[in-house]
């Protein structure tokens, strides 16, 4: 029994894109110039945040009151902030938090959404109806409002923050994966597997999800972009990481009052960093969507 099941898995679960398909997708992706630039931007910022501090090391823990709010100079390329931290070093330091939290939250949201959507679409009937109404209810409450309510209740640590962001942003991927599952669940290879006694779980995990993988990857990329953007709101809404640690959103919201005093170097660099990285992930997602020929993001 198990050998015949395995052979069905081997025959049918071969994802739609085989080796040559993957190469074709890569070629199509590389032809999209914006997407390639986006990939370059992401690689740059990863190096900047994770390798940068090794080359350009700065003190990001001690308050240095003799050098506060200095404008950019040879000693401090992007100036210093209100407690004397070097702004360029802080940009690397905060970027680490933004990227890690955004990436983890985006991936977590995609995983939850994928499982939920696949289960709902595969089950169908009233289970599907109830599960999708839960998604509707979640979408009906704007994410920023939930984050602000949470900020009134508690200040989470980084893991808590990832969990909260993941738990409020899995809704859109769940819809996409459900739609994909609906078209896949009555295909011959799934029915064959069921006919020879394969379980529902096997049908979902070995057949439906591998065949939805392009949809899931595209959704995940957009999800990471949205998560990094959401992380930028988090400090502004009072949920941010606590000083002396920081992230780009935190730098931006603490710099906001300083901006009126003309300290532009405290808001322009983190603002641009957020815009560039979010833009880059969106461009990559766009390129992947064209490369895999997946429809729509909503």
């Amino acid at each position, binding site marked *: 029994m198990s050998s015949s099941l395995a052979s069905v898995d081997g025959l049918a679960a071969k994802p739609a894109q085989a080796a040559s398909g993957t190469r074709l997708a890569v070629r199509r992706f590389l032809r999209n110039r*914006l997407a390639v630039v986006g990939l370059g931007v992401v690689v740059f910022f990863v190096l900047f945040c994770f390798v940068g501090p090794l080359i350009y090391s700065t003190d990001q823990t001690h308050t240095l009151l003799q050098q506060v709010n200095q404008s950019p100079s040879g000693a401090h390329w992007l100036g210093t902030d209100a407690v004397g931290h070097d702004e360029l070093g802080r940009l690397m330091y905060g970027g680490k938090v933004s990227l890690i939290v955004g990436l983890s939250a985006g991936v977590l949201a995609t995983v939850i959404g994928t499982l939920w959507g696949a289960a709902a679409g595969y089950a169908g009937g009233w289970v599907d109806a109830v599960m999708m*109404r*839960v998604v*509707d*209810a979640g*979408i*009906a*409450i*704007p*994410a*920023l*409002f*939930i984050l*602000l*309510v949470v*900020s*009134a*209740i*508690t200040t989470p640590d980084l893991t808590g923050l990832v969990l909260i962001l993941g738990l409020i942003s899995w809704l859109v991927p769940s819809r996409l994966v459900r739609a994909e599952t609906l078209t896949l669940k009555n295909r011959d290879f799934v029915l064959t597997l069921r006919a020879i006694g394969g379980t529902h779980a096997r049908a979902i995990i070995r057949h439906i999800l591998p065949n939805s993988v392009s949809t899931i990857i595209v959704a995940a990329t957009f999800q990471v*972009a949205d998560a990094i*953007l959401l992380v*930028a*709101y988090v400090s*502004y*809404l*009072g949920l941010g990481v606590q000083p002396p640690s920081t992230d780009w*959103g935190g730098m*931006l*919201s603490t710099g*906001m009052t300083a*901006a*009126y005093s003309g300290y532009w170097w405290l*808001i322009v660099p983190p*603002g641009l960093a*957020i*815009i*560039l*990285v*979010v*833009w880059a992930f*969106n*461009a990559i997602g766009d390129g992947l969507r064209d490369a895999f020929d997946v429809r729509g993001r*909503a």
Partner: protein
Amino acid sequence: MSTYSFLIRRVLQALAVVLLVTVVVFCLLHALPGGPARGILGPQATASQITAFNHEQGLDKPLPVQYVYYLNQLIHGDLGMSYTLNEPVSQLITERLPKTLLLTVLSAVVGLLVAVPLGVWQAVRRNKPVDYVITTLSFIAYSTPVYFLGLILVLVFSQVLPWFPAQAPQGNSVLAVLSQPQGLVLPVVAGAATMVAVFSRYMRSATLENLTEDYVRTARAGGSRPRAILTRHVFRNSLTPVVAMLGYYVPVLFGGALVVEQLFNYPGMGLLFWTAAQSSDYPVLLGCVLVISIATVTGTLLADVLQRVIDPRVKAGRS
């Protein structure tokens, strides 16, 4: 499916969603540290005071019973009392909701008026420099946190160039707000920016899709001018999916209003929500969440119905 049974089905679905939201809000209310009693009586309250308060308010009853009480209150329009303002939450919201609706509707209208022509223009000039420039700009607008955009707007158009006030119009009524239109410019622009980014993309792809349809070729072969085909046929057909997306966009609009109102000190529901969060005024917070969700569900429902009315293909496709 007939239009009536579709309507009934959709309304029932919407009601189910609202009911689910009330469950979420109720659970949140009870998940609060120390519960509502701690919130009202403050951190100094003794254990016996809290017990007495819980008994008086019926908070020592089983949760399902409390939920039924809560629903009953909601049906009678009672959202509880604000801890800090000592006014009924429903009254606070009725005062401020119209002003928030004004801001969101203005942002949406301005956003659409800019986004729709942009998207059509991009589709017609596909893969030309104009298309790339607008695509890049809309990605940038989409990637900018609204509070950062608002700050830049204030710095540029209020500090450097003293064209518009940095503060939104104050006043208790929609009319009072409307009487100072120059104060609305920056908040509306900040609220509309993301919308322009998102909807110009939708409009672009919808128009592109329609331009490849057979009817376009037929009309062209029949001698219609390209411009006439675009305005008379393609434009109308492309607008339908955009209308449907509008419904899903309502929560984003409200999220934007939350930030914009705080940033420009605009006296709407978003600002009420914001101040309530600073003072842990839970009845106000959860009342606002409930009202916003109902508004969102209604928006989605309206967009669905509107789409069905505009486009006969939707009806045929769904049944």
